[in-house]
């Protein structure tokens, strides 16, 4: 009896109301644990397909597992359409988890509507967003709003401590109750402080680890190559939510050596400018990984709206850490010391100017993170070469959009990643595809390989030369 009810509910949502039913949305709507929601969706798909093989039903799956790429092992989490499921599965060395992500009548062309679906329901359930979630963190409790920023700093430090511990702890906890289905839930995502679903959490976790590792690697000046394929991979996913964690490998290898520093560093990287007084001060900032930033921006869009100070601080913290510059071969971050707090830029909206002020102000809370090349630490307004898109009419009367490097005074924090390398197998038409950004125009990001012809065949194609 109870079985039938939820099936009818899902049927009504999908077929009658033409909604996109994600497992998260279903879990909030029906008030069930996420794993139960996933199971319900799976049941529904199976039954519906058995009854009526021609049913207009499109399913997306969340796949996570480890992947060997360029000799590195990394963890990948992706939302894939049904038709791409087998292909993605076959690429993974170890498939940690597959479960139904969403069901809808319409074939989705991109992942935007999936986010849209979850956005509002999550926003309205902000206070108890982990109520039905499989990810829990006992230490994540709302803070009293009356705390000052200085004490909030201390909280950040302690939370970082807790987070690194919790991650270790939660990796071992088993999944919340839920019938063991044809899916195995991945352990990896459990390590995240209870914010969102496993996918997002996995991403966050990777990011946490990644930023921590990055912080270390800033001192080690490791190869920039690590990042590039990561980015390329992200963009090559059709539903680009892969969380590549190259640095897991590095993290493991350097864990023993740098263990203390890991804990030390994040506390330091929480960057209140008051801490910024060291000698040897070096600004390091992270070039924004476009898709990753997008994902975080999406999530951040929810997070920033959180009323919890604590979560906001955590968020700020993450943002600050994320802005640590990606190690590049041509950069000179060797002098950054792990315990020099001022090495990381403050992102709080109205920071008192640090003694060695950051290279640019950070005006917004929900931005593309500034990505300024670390320099000698002076307060310069540099002219940077920025990749910009120029659109013009060429000799043949076709509209051509070209990405060119242009010198631009870098007074605002809008320098995008210049070194983005391969975008792997993007179809030619999409080479001009730009990363998500807000309405305010900024320097456009594109493939770094300018020489590579912006293959605009398909774009100019609709100016038929008949």
């Amino acid at each position, binding site marked *: 009896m109870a079985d039938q009810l939820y099936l009818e509910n899902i049927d009504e949502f999908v077929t009658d109301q*033409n*909604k*996109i039913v994600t497992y998260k949305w279903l879990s909030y709507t029906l008030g069930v644990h996420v794993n139960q929601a996933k199971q319900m969706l799976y049941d529904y798909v199976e039954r519906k397909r058995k009854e009526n093989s021609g049913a*207009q039903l499109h399913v997306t799956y969340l796949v996570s597992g480890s992947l060997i790429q360029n000799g590195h092992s990394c963890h990948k989490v992706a939302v894939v359409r049904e038709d791409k499921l087998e292909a993605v599965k076959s690429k993974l060395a170890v498939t940690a988890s597959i479960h139904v992500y969403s069901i*809808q*009548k*319409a*074939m*989705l*062309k*991109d*992942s*935007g*509507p999936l*986010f*849209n*679906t979850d*956005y*509002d329901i999550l926003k309205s359930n902000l206070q108890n967003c982990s109520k039905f979630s499989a990810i829990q963190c006992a230490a994540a409790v709302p803070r009293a709003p009356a705390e000052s920023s200085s004490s909030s700093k201390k909280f950040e430090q302690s939370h970082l401590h807790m987070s690194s511990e919790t991650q270790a702890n939660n990796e071992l906890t088993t999944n919340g109750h839920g019938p063991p289905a044809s899916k195995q839930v991945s352990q990896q995502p459990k390590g995240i402080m209870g914010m969102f679903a496993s996918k997002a959490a996995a991403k966050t976790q990777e990011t946490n680890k990644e930023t921590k590792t990055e912080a270390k690697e800033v001192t080690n000046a490791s190869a920039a190559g690590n990042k590039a394929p990561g980015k390329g991979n992200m963009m090559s996913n059709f539903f680009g939510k892969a969380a590549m964690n190259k640095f897991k490998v590095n993290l493991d290898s350097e864990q023993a050596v740098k263990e203390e520093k890991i804990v030390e560093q994040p506390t330091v990287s929480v960057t209140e400018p008051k801490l910024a007084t060291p000698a040897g001060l070096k600004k390091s900032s992270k070039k924004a990984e476009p898709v990753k930033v*997008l994902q975080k*921006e*999406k999530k951040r*869009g929810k997070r920033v709206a959180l009323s919890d100070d604590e979560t906001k601080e955590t968020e700020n913290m993450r943002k600050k850490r994320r802005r640590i510059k990606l190690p590049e071969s041509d950069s000179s971050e060797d002098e950054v010391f792990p315990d020099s707090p001022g090495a990381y830029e403050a992102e709080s909206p109205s920071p008192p100017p640090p003694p060695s002020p950051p290279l640019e102000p950070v005006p917004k809370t929900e931005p593309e993170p500034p990505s300024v090349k670390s320099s000698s630490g002076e307060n310069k307004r540099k002219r940077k070469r920025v990749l910009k898109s120029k*659109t013009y009419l060429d000799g043949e009367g076709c*509209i051509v*959009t070209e990405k060119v490097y242009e010198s631009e005074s870098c007074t605002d924090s809008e320098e995008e990643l210049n070194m983005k390398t391969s975008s792997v197998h993007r*179809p*030619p*038409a*999409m080479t*001009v*595809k*730009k*990363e*998500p*950004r*807000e*309405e305010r125009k900024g320097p456009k990001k594109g493939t770094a390989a300018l020489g590579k012809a912006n293959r605009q065949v*398909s*774009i100019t*194609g*609709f100016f038929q030369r008949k």
Partner: protein
Amino acid sequence: MTTLTRQDLNFGQVVADVLCEFLEVAVHLILYVREVYPVGIFQKRKKYNVPVQMSCHPELNQYIQDTLHCVKPLLEKNDVEKVVVVILDKEHRPVEKFVFEITQPPLLSIRSASRLDACGGGEGASVMGRPPLTPSSDSLLSHVEQLLRAFILKISVCDAVLDHNPPGCTFTVLVHTREAATRNMEKIQVIKDFPWILADEQDVHMHDPRLIPLKTMTSDILKMQLYVEERAHKGS
């Protein structure tokens, strides 16, 4: 309330701005979802805190912007009955019409308007420390934003309820106005070299249409309904 007119205008401007922004996003999204233009010219942008697809072709963007720029004064004066995005096949006959029926409640918003004005801002200015009496403009606009997000979502999934369009489609935008407005339009050419013409019967009339409602929204400042009129036989 001697300042009634000014408040109304203020409000009209707010609504017109909100609507024009929304319509721009909606038009781009319709072009993306219905595959009027190749997918490659679209890129992900963010609006209302969700990802949307917008074209990056400069002439197309300019066209849409100019169109909506001309519609804006009509919206401010509440002269617009509906804005229709028509998709035409190769023979210039409509195959699909996305109809945005717009109603602005005339006096309902007075209280909110006075609130807005008293707090020293038109455009939803958020004044800190203001005692929350009547629905604040912040919560009003964020409510409207939520509703518009729902519209965006509905457009994204409208594929499920519509048939495929034949290849080689184009689009146009029609504005249905209340009576006197068109006369004014002719006098005021809002943008030079961007004239509006009275639509042909051929462009407006669709043979044997099916009606598919998509979404409705009601708020203090705006009521909108979106439905699709679809030709029964789209042919090829």
